């Protein structure tokens, strides 16, 4: 038995107007101070007020939100008693909103969520996500990623009840994204789609969104990075990120994420930058040892017109080259060294990097599962920017 879920998705010009048609009494908006400063929260509350929905805002979300932040947000929700919880922002705000809903509606702690339990969260409140990056795809997944600050590690979990009911992709939300964030979050979307297309939890349902998301990203990310006012590119990337979320969210992410999470947890490298950095190395690792995955990468390369000539491995390697070329063109580091992390600190952290990545589910949802030795080599090669040759 497998599941496939997507939120009701409203996208395109003026899609925020959908808010003035929803039914409800009180909306609890979870966001960060930057979104407030940009005036994006006002766009949301203006529409909600037209639907006679009272709003309150929690703007205390930080990048890589902590469990403590969720507890604070949930505390405010318990006082306000909303019937809508809205995550407005990047993945941090959306994941905080999901987790706050769980705490508020189920009366449990953030980490007590058991995916096999049914909490009937909707009896208390519905969930909506409005992304302001393109992106984490959190608006289209049930996944929640928080940070255990003391343990310096990411904690991933969720349940099908934390899949948003509604996702709104209004391009006004992303037009002011600066180039660096455009590049970082765009690479996150690419990782989701490529990893999701090849992971061992994939299904026929996840293939379509994954392929289209990859093609849209290759065609539009650089355009959006070079010119933030390119509306078509921004809209395409919003769709790409959401579809990539649908792909991996109904399957699983892969090695790019387990390695990227490890480095993000220890060195605070922004998520998209970290996973995007590791993507080509983890792809090379799969190509070298898994004909099945090489064949899937080749399908992507052919679908995206990156390479049609040659056998599967040739086309797969062409895809890796295309990923590196895209990453470089949107200001991404191609090696860990380029991020500024000192070699000594990195090598000293190797046991911790290993511990975090081997204990991520995503390390095992690939066809060539690395043992510790291979992971150490992968982390080391990625430091120096050396292509994987084993």
């Amino acid at each position, binding site marked *: *038995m*497998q*599941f496939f879920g997507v939120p009701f998705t409203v996208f395109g010009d003026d899609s925020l107007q959908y808010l003035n048609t929803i039914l409800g009494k009180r909306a609890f908006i979870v966001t960060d101070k930057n979104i407030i400063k940009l005036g994006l929260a006002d766009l949301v509350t203006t529409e909600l007020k037209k639907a006679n929905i009272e709003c309150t805002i929690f703007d205390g979300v930080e990048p890589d939100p902590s469990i403590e932040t969720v507890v604070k947000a949930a505390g405010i929700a318990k006082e306000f008693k909303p019937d809508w919880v809205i995550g407005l922002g990047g993945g941090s705000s959306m994941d905080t909103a999901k987790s706050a809903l769980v705490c508020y509606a189920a009366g449990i702690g953030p*980490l*007590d*969520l*058991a*995916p*096999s*339990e*049914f909490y009937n969260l909707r009896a208390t409140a519905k969930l909506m996500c409005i992304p302001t990056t393109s992106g984490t795809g959190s608006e289209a997944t049930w996944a929640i990623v928080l940070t255990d600050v003391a343990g310096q*590690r990411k*904690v*991933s*979990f969720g*349940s*099908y009840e934390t899949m948003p009911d509604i996702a709104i992709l209004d391009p006004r939300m992303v037009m002011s994204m600066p180039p660096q964030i455009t590049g970082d979050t765009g690479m996150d979307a690419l990782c989701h789609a490529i990893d999701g297309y090849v992971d*061992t*939890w994939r299904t026929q349902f996840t293939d379509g969104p994954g392929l289209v998301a990859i093609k849209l990203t290759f065609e539009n990310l650089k355009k959006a990075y070079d010119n933030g006012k390119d509306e078509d590119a921004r809209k395409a990337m919003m769709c790409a990120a959401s579809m990539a979320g649908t792909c991996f969210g109904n399957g699983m992410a892969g090695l790019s994420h387990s390695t990227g999470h490890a480095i993000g947890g220890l060195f605070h490298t922004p998520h998209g930058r970290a996973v995007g950095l590791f993507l080509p190395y983890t792809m090379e690792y799969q190509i070298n040892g898994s004909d099945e995955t090489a064949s899937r990468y080749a399908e992507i390369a052919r679908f995206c017109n990156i390479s049609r000539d040659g056998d599967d491995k040739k086309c797969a390697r062409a895809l890796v080259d295309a990923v590196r070329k895209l990453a470089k063109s949107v200001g991404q580091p191609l090696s860990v060294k380029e991020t500024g992390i000192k070699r000594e600190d990195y090598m000293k952290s190797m046991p911790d990097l290993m511990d975090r990545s*081997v*204990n*991520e*589910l995503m*390390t*095992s*949802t690939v066809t060539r599962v690395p043992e510790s030795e291979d992971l150490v080599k992968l982390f080391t090669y990625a430091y120096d920017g050396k292509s994987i040759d084993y």
Partner: protein
Amino acid sequence: MAVFGTLEWVTAFMDAINASKPYEDAAKTWEGDFYFIIEVGGAVKEQGYQYVDLWHGKCRKVDVVTEATKDKYKPEFVLAASIATWRKVAEKKVDPIQAIVTRQLKLTGNMGKVMRAVKAAQELVNCVTQVKTEYPE
């Protein structure tokens, strides 16, 4: 060959765990005990409880209790499934985490703690595969 759900089976499981270096390495910091519950259905006429106490890479104790004596232990984690699902997990036809997410395997207990020990969970399944098992029909 031991019948799944019997004391003979869970004892063989304990032996497999304690002989496994990969499990020992992966679970060296794990502290937590389990009930693995076999739900009523098919050939299973009474709910069965297999108690397994895992501590720092080893299995300290196992037991089998019944519905009438289930209060003998208060484990930190409870995993319940039908015999068919247990068999799929044991034969690696379904990933245990995927089975939890799709509610085929019902977990009570701190999911966050389990998700930080994915490698240990995988090695535990590997230990299951080493036990020659007969399933009730």
